[in-house]
């Protein structure tokens, strides 16, 4: 490409990135601030990281969040994959339209409504709120994201692959585990990661459905911020940003590598 960068392009790119990343950059910089006052720079220090790890309430909230995210992402992945399979496989069944609509509706449903309705359900069923209810709520709203991701992969999948497995003597269950699942595995994994991140940073739904002893990290951060932003919170947030960023980078690098390898293989095949 020999298209030169026009001043307009440069400005818009710089402004766009600045808009997106300056707040986060600021947060990261101030997490290394010596001063107790968030907005006054007083030199480099990592003491707030130490303080964050020493803060038992914060650490326990982090553990709750991690547990919720792991369990709910896994369950949502299983349920979402099943829903996607049903939608991809049975193209004609009574109520398919309604079913697919119901799977996708939570995507656009305001979180407040999802959270509130789940709360009402738990109250009506007389379920004590705690970590279990948060997990169930997270499964509910994140499984539709998994379903969407997996279904898009299934849509591009050659149906005759599974038929070939059946034809060669594999029972439907074995055909699924030995052929379909390995092929859609990247999408299932991507769905899991999506569900995991969604659960990790959800505040609204957790707020509605959690009970005593089940405070998640976003809830904890939010409640502390109301009493004033401390550099400690900045440190915790920086760790979170680091985790998410490295996850995204690892995922995209592995995908990229796979593509490159595949392209090279295809060129090799074309040559001879």
């Amino acid at each position, binding site marked *: 490409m020999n298209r030169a960068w026009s001043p307009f392009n440069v400005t818009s790119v710089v402004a766009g990135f600045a808009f997106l990343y300056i707040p986060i950059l600021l947060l990261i910089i101030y997490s290394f601030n010596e001063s107790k006052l968030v907005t006054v720079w007083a030199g480099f220090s990592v003491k707030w990281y130490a303080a964050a790890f020493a803060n038992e309430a914060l650490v326990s909230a982090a553990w709750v969040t991690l547990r919720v995210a792991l369990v709910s992402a896994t369950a949502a992945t299983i349920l979402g994959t099943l829903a996607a399979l049903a939608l991809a496989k049975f193209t004609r069944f009574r109520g398919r339209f309604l079913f697919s609509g119901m799977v996708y509706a939570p995507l656009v449903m305001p979180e407040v409504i999802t959270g509130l309705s789940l709360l009402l359900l738990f109250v009506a069923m007389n379920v004590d709120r705690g970590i279990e209810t948060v997990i169930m709520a997270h499964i509910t709203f994140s499984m539709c994201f998994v379903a969407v991701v997996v279904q898009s992969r299934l849509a591009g999948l050659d149906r005759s692959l599974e*038929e070939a497995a059946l034809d*060669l003597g594999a*029972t439907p269950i074995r055909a699924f585990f*030995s*052929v379909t699942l*390995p092929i859609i595995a990247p999408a299932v994994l991507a769905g899991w990661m999506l569900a995991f991140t969604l659960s990790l940073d959800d505040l609204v739904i957790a707020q509605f459905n959690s009970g005593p002893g089940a405070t998640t990290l976003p809830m904890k951060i939010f409640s502390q911020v109301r009493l004033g932003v401390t550099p400690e919170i900045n440190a915790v947030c920086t760790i979170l940003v680091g985790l998410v960023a490295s996850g995204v980078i690892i995922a995209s690098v592995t995908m990229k590598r796979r593509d490159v390898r595949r392209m090279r293989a295809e060129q090799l095949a*074309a040559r001879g």
Partner: protein
Amino acid sequence: MNKQVASFRRSFQPWDDIDATPFIEFRNVTKRYGAVTAVNDLSLKIFEREFFALLGPSGCGKTTLMRMLAGFEEVSAGSVLLAGNDLVGVPPYRRPVNMMFQSYALFPHMSVEKNIAFGLKQEGMAKADIAARVSKMLELVKMEAFAKRKPDQLSGGQRQRVALARSLAKQPKVLLLDEPLGALDRKLREETQFELVDLQENLGITFMIVTHDQQEAMTVADRIAVMDHGRIVQTAPPTEIYERPQSRYVADFLGDINLVEATFAGTTKGTVSLETSQGGTLKTVGDVSATKGDVVWFAVRPEKLEISRTKPASGDNLFFGEVWDIAYLGDQTAYRVKLDNGIFVKASVLNTRVDVDNPITWEDRVWLSCAPDAAMVLSA
């Protein structure tokens, strides 16, 4: 091909034997999808070691018929028998039938070796036996050097070979081929057709192929069934189906045909006389169930028409017109001649010599003719 096989092939005509037991039998099979009838009350017998082709345009039900034998579709009515056993209700993974898919359906996450071994593994075969069979299969399709490659590291022709090896690995009683060569280029396709024939003869397995390519069907098959709208319109060996089609549909589907509408006048000493609307007489041979005055069709293939600028001596089946189009195809030249009554007739001539003096060209006035036994009469 060894001599024994060749002589076996020459005498192989079980379909003419009334006592022969069919190996595969479709009995009054109907398949409906909602209001659409894909296969309509169809009966068909296929014999052991036969290479059978289902030929027809897309949507004629040929693939549905094959998928019912493989077990991917259940019949709506009727029964499908294999070696005397009713297959209705038997799932695909319990049928002694294997299929080669149009898309090849190779498992992308497995190497060539693993793909071929897949079916054997499902059987619970011992590891050493699997390895032996896989290497035998690789040898059969000449893919030994590619055992460790993944499908996307193979060319189209190589993938086709792997798919064939995989479907043959379990030594099925019947191999189903769904448009197996559709994705290959012409040269490779023609080569592969002969390889398929040799393979089938050497293995002695019954092959059933679905194709819309009439040339492919005629090259590989012992018998061809031509399908139309969920029914079989004619089942016969290639020569018979080409030279003695039973209807205009079959005649037109396999190769080119010139049709002239006429009325049946009578049969004398095996010669059928027809009258055209212009009052001319056409003569042909063949059996036709018609009575005087019935509308029938005089049919002649382009290569059986002779073309010349001088009036031929024999006076049968003469047409006169002007050369309208010429298509030089290398091995042959096809002429489209506009008769004086406005009808177009196709004639083709083999180019047996390099240079021809004064060749027939555009706007030449030409005579077309054919002997009575080069033409046929169709009543349907």
